[in-house]
């Protein structure tokens, strides 16, 4: 019952749209339902990255420590988003902190479990990688635009 329920939840998440039934069954074996109250940390910079999250509700802020400037908030992720891909790429360590800024419901997927399944079943591995590449591409594009700092004006401005 528990597993079936989790499958339904996974099926509703945009990240997994169109995933085959076989692959869904592979995935669900590594999944668990999680909740984080506002203020709770999800990820610590530097620690082993052994998970990723499919966010269902709430909001998570990504922060990084910049010595003298303290914690800088870089981005938020919310419902329908994916949090974390360091589990996929050696040396499997987090590059930022993440904490819930509003109560979060998510599905956690175990990285080690998934990596093994990706190795065992390359079709499944390809499916995961192509979905993550899409997420990374969109995230990179958004970050580039964010870097442009579009709402400030250049010193050459006149009127």
């Amino acid at each position: 019952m528990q597993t079936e329920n989790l499958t339904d939840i996974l099926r509703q998440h945009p990240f997994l749209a169109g995933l085959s039934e076989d692959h869904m069954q592979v995935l669900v074996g590594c999944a668990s339902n999680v909740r984080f109250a506002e203020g709770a940390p999800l990820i610590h910079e530097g620690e082993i990255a052994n998970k990723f999250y499919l966010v269902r509700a709430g909001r998570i802020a990504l922060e990084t420590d910049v010595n003298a400037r303290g914690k800088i908030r870089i981005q938020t992720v919310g419902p329908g988003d994916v949090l974390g891909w360091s589990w996929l790429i050696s040396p499997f360590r987090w590059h930022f902190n993440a904490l819930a800024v509003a109560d979060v419901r998510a599905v956690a997927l175990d990285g080690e479990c998934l990596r093994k399944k990706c190795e065992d079943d390359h079709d499944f591995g390809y499916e995961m990688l192509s979905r993550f590449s899409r997420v990374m591409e969109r995230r990179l594009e958004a970050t580039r635009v964010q870097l442009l700092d579009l709402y400030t004006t250049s010193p050459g401005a006149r009127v």
Partner: protein
Amino acid sequence: MTHETMNAPAAPREGVRLHPVTVKKVIWETDDTFTLQIDLGALGNTFNFLPGQFNMLYVFGLGEAAISISSDASQTGTLAHTIHRVGTVTSGLAQVKRGDVIGLRGPFGAGWPITAARGKDVCIVAGGIGLAPLRPVMYAMLRERTAFERIILLYGARSPLDILYRVELEEWAKEHNVEVLVTVDRGDSSWKGYIGVVTTLFSYIKLDARATVGYVCGPETMMKYTIDEMGRRGLAEDQIYLSMERNMKCAVGFCGHCQYGPEFICKDGPVFALPRIRHLLDRKEL
């Protein structure tokens, strides 16, 4: 297409006279952005504008700047302009005090086609000062809230301190059933809202693409990414409108400065239906 225009009077008129008007109130919205409330005086009896239109504001001896009108078009006798202090004239305007007199010419240009959105969902996407010319659209729609289905406002600002009209944003969300999502490019630990570019907010709303009209205003790059995102979500190009900006000097199509390919932003725009300028948006140095 029902593109609202008041820029085509029946009889040709002269380049529109400059009127001295009195500043009633100065409201600092952020560190570098302020709103001038203006008493139109005698001009108030005849002055009508459409949401999206702009005026030329003149500071004595210093020059003119094109500024969108950001107040409610149904109010008579008074106007508001929200101004980003960036250069000589806008810095001059920033020094204006209550009771001072400035010059005003206008209104100019084509406005937002609000009638095109009746009976539909409306998705407004604003970036930075781009919220100012869209505020009259909000007022117009909220006055007839039931004439529109969902009203969604996605707003991107530089930082939490740069968010314009904070009180109103909350009021629209709480009291007028507007889905207001605000994101900033740079946050700190006191900011619990969204961080990221405005297009990321599309993930958190579900658009009924076939019944939604989009209004977009902000820096050109932000608008390009926004219309791409709207396209990805199935919005038809002819349902998307955007407000363009160029160096406007005369505001009536004589001076040539604001040309954008075949268009004069001042008189053909500033609000355009996307299909009309789609082919121009990717042209560099146009």
